[in-house]
Every structure is written in C-alpha cells, then in structure tokens.
C-alpha cells in the first residue's frame, strides 16, 4: 500500500498549510497593501499560494522550516500576480527588496502567531461593546461599513476614524502582552 504512505504525508502538508494560514495571510497582505481582504476576490494570492504549496509539496524537505519555504512561495506568487495587471501593480509594493524583507520575517511571525491570537482575545475583551461591534462589522459582517455608518447615524469618515483608533489600541495592547510574555 504505497498509497497510504502518501496520504499521511498529504495530511501533514495540508495541516501545515492550514496551520500557517494566518501567517501567510499576514505576509501576503503586507506585500499587497492595496488589497481589500476578506472580500470576495481579495484572497486570490493566498488561494494561489495554497495551491502552489500543495502542488510543490514534493519539493518541501521534511525537517526544514515550513514558514520560510511557504513565504518564499508566497513572495514569488505576489510578484507574479503583480505583473498580471496595472490594477494589481497599483495594489502591490513596488520595492522587491522590501517584499523580500517581509518574507524573511515569516518564521518569526509564525512562531508567535498563537501568542498573538491569545493576546488579541484578551485585548478584544478590553474594548467597549461599541468598539467590539465595530471590529465585528469590519471583519465578520457582509454588510458594508458604509451601510453600517448610515445605520449608526455616523459619517463614513467618522466611522473609519473610530476603526483606526480601535486598531491602534488593539495593536498596542497585543504588543504589550507579547513583550510581557517575552520578558
């Protein structure tokens, strides 16, 4: 049963790909800041990267760093995607050295992603109900923020400003918790 041996490896590969989705999403989003992620076609590069990781799974050396390998694939996918249209170019970072620098941070991002998730969980709990609702609207609702703003009787720019404040607060809170754990 040579087949069953291969299936186990396949399982492991899919598990690795699944586990590192947040890291890959973060790395790709950083390389393509123009992308409206979470929207219908916003995840193209991530999906393509997943597919290429799967198709090239034979070239991954067991024991080597999966995040580093995956981020290299992601970097090449981003650069290929950027070439495909003017719109893609406009969304993507132009500086190849900077893109490479971001890819080189992948292993580090992957390492503390679980701590970040845990920290985010705590930090979200520290928000006001209103702030939490705003985060939920942005990331978990199909309703557009424009509609949500109208519903709340706010202008869109005001809502965006509020979202910016919440994000700053969450980022600093997560950073503090990570630093506290590291020390």
């Amino acid at each position, binding site marked *: 049963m040579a087949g069953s041996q291969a299936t186990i490896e396949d399982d492991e590969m899919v*598990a690795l790909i699944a586990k590192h989705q947040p890291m890959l999403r973060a790395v790709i989003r950083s390389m393509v800041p123009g992308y409206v992620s979470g929207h219908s076609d916003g995840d193209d590069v991530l999906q393509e990267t997943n597919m290429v990781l799967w198709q090239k799974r034979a070239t991954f050396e067991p024991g080597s760093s999966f995040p580093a390998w995956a981020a290299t694939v992601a970097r090449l996918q981003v650069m290929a995607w950027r070439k495909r249209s003017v719109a893609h170019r406009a969304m993507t970072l132009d500086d190849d050295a900077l893109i490479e*620098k971001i890819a080189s941070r992948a292993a580090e991002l992957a390492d503390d992603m679980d701590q970040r998730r845990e920290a985010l969980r705590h930090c979200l709990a520290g928000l006001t109900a209103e702030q939490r609702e705003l985060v*939920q609207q942005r990331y978990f609702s199909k309703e557009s923020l424009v509609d949500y703003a*109208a519903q709340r009787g706010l202008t869109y720019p005001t809502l*965006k400003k509020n979202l*910016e404040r919440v994000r700053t607060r969450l980022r600093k809170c997560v950073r503090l918790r990570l630093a506290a754990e590291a020390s």
Partner: protein
Amino acid sequence: MKTPRWESLLSRAQDGELSAEEKRELERLLREDEASLDQYLDAMALDALSQEHHDEESIAKPLAHVANQATETRAWRTAVLAIAASLVFVAGWWSLQTSDSPSSSRAERVVTGPRVVLAKGQNAEFEMPSGVQVRLRGPAAYQTLGDNQLSLTSGLLTANVPPQATGFRVVTPNGDVVDHGTEIGVMVDELQTELHVFEGQAEVVLPLDGVSSMVGASKAVRVNHPNNAGYEPISIQPSLFGKPAKAASSRIRFDFDSNDEAWTQTQTGVFADRGDQPTSNLTAGQSRYETLVGFVKLPAAEDKVESFHDNPLQFAPQSGEGRVLPLPFHFRDSMSSLRLTSPPFRLNSNDGPITAFITGGRGHAETPPDFVHELPDQADGEGFLGLALRRVRDGRYLCSVRRRPGNFYEWAPVEISQSTLAAATRNDPADEVYVLDLIDTYQDPRWSWIGLDTVSIPGRLVPGRLVPGRLVPDRLVEEQ
C-alpha cells in the same frame, strides 16, 4: 513613528484604501524605519487573525483549480476534512468574544472525538456539548469535531437542534449541512448527501466555492459528490428517518409572479422623487410597495454615499420572476408609513411555520403596535419594519417577524414558527381569517426600506370574491 498620520496610513492599508501617493509614502517609511515595519507587520497579523474564519475557504477553493486531476482533488479533500477540527477550533475563539454566553469557556477544551463505526442494525444516541440531540443509525461512520460539529462519512443521522446550538454543522464528503435551530435528517453515502428538514430551516454548503442554499421546513435536497458539485430538490422522506409521515400539507405560496393572487397596497405615501432627470417610475411617484416582475435595474443614485451606489442595483427575485420592493427606490421617498396586505386566509395551526424572504433593514421596534389602526402615518426612528400576522376581525397584530442583521441587499430568510403561530392564535376559532401585513414605519437616519419575496403560509386562501370591506375593515376605510 507615532504620528496620527502614520496610524491613519496603517489603518488605510488594512482596508486596502491607500492612494498611489500614500503607498509610496508607506514604502519609504517601511524601508527606512525598522520600527515602522514592526508595527506594520503587527497590524497585518492582527488583520489576518481577525479573518481566520475565511481560512476554510482559502484552503477549499484551490480545489476548483486542480479539479481536473481527480486523485489530487480527492487527496486534498480528504486531508482538508481531516484537519477540519483544527480550523473549527481556531474559528471558535472569536465567538468567545462576541457571545455573552456564560458557557463559552467550553470552547477552550474542544477536542476531536474518536472515529466511530456503527454496523448495520447498530444505533447510537447522544447529546453534543452544545445541547444538540443526535441519533445515528448504522451502518454509519462518524466523528465529533468539536462542541457543535461532527463529520458523517456514511449513514443516517437525525438531529434536534435547540436554539442555542444554532449553527450545528454536519461535515460530509459531499458538502456540509448547517442547521439553523431545527429538526433535521442527514443521509450520507459515497456519492451524495441528503438533507431533510422536518422543522425550521437548515443550510447546505457545497465544498466548492462555499456555495450555500437555505432549505425550509418540510423540504429536502440532495447534494452530489464534490466532483459534480451541485444540489437538487427531492421530496422529503420522514419515514427514512423513522419519523411518521405528515398528512399532505396545504400551503399558500406567494412568489409575486404575474399570475399570483395580488397583495393590496393598504398604506401609501405622497409623491416623492429624488431629483433625477428624467425620472422613471422606479425613482419617482407616489411612495408605495409594488410587485416588480422581470428584470429590474434600479438606476444609480445621484446622491450616492462614497462609491457604494455607483452602479445600478440589480435585484434578482429570491424565487420566480417577481418580488416586492418599495418605490421610489432611494432615500428621498416621502417617509410615509407603507403597508402591503396579503389576500385573506385561514391558518392550519399544525402545518409548519410562516416563512418568507426579506431584503432591506430591520427597523427599531421588535414588534408592530397591538392594532393596525395604531400604526403611525409617518415613519420614524422608533418604528417597526417587518412582516406581521393580523387578525382581520379586530385588526390585532398577533405575531410578527423582522430580518436578522445582515447585508441589506441580500434576501434573508425569516420565519414565524409553528409554535409561535399556535400560541398567538390559540383562542381563535378554526375558521378565523387572517392577513399578513408588510410594514414599513421606520426611517433612520434618512431612509430605510424592506422588500419581500417567496412567502409560504400554512393555510388556505379564503375562497370566492368576498367583499373586501367586510373582511378587512381598515381597508374599507382607506379605500373611501
């Protein structure tokens, strides 16, 4: 780098809203300042963590690209199924934050159960941690994947899902079933999965592209093998799941197609327009509910918000050829209260819920006033926006429903359950006559609206040409 400008740049990058100039500025800062790069990666990591609920999609979707390589596809799908539990666990942490349920700490210790195989003639019956009652009939193979989710590779399953366990998911090789607080039956074999909905409603989710479809009470669908990704309606078979078959039901259905029994405009507003030149009946006229049959394109608004209303809105009906929408469509209607009334009917109290699909908003008030004559003439920020059951004899609103929060521009299923109907009408004689009112008494801050399609009522229309006035007193008054 702690200037307000930098925070705004970060936030705009997180929303994909950078101008070309801002992108250049961002690149310069990231290149020159290591601390900026750190913060940028922190921000994007938080963004990615907030989107883990999309992970399943980003992993399942590449399937479509390798679909021509059958063995590749099968290996991928099998592997994805195997790791479904870890994704569920990951997605679960968010609900901890948003639900106030005291039991939510349970999600901390979600574990995947063992794979269980039942032989022919063997049965299993147990309760999920979420409270779902599950019964399985062998031959079957299943595995619990968390508090409120199990994978069924083959066999027959029935589930009673209490309201707090809404979202109970059955993962099958051919597609998933997501329950929305109901009683359902699921049958799985190698090539297909069948969903039978005995009460309430449930959703089937195809493995490719996350296509999903809502299935209502007393309905059933078959989902085919993923290579043939699709589903079809079939007839419900309660006996397959050891349930007594129900007597043939008679339901009234309104698809708002040209041949349907018409609903009546019982409350309309004054002339309104939104200043378009030229105007059309879609953008000007007496504000009212209208049944629009065929292809409808609502023109782009002059006074659009940002880029949202840039393009014409196209409203596909939820089913059939027609749907009900308020006209003129856009936020300069007259702000009058609007009401549309169904033909009169009698109810069968034990034949399932009233179901319908609603677009638009959900208003403010949980329910309409007690009586139809108490509805205000003008919509305001406190009003009700939804569908209500009215007893014709005295004009009393007995029960009502409004849509759940969601995208205004998508059809949302709503339901008045069989038990709610029974409780609301328990003192009425069997030949009591009712109507449904579609009510808009809400505006906030400028405009609000509601559309309707695919109404199903357990009952029968009152036959013959009855004098409307005798049946619907308020209609007589309004028509004079």
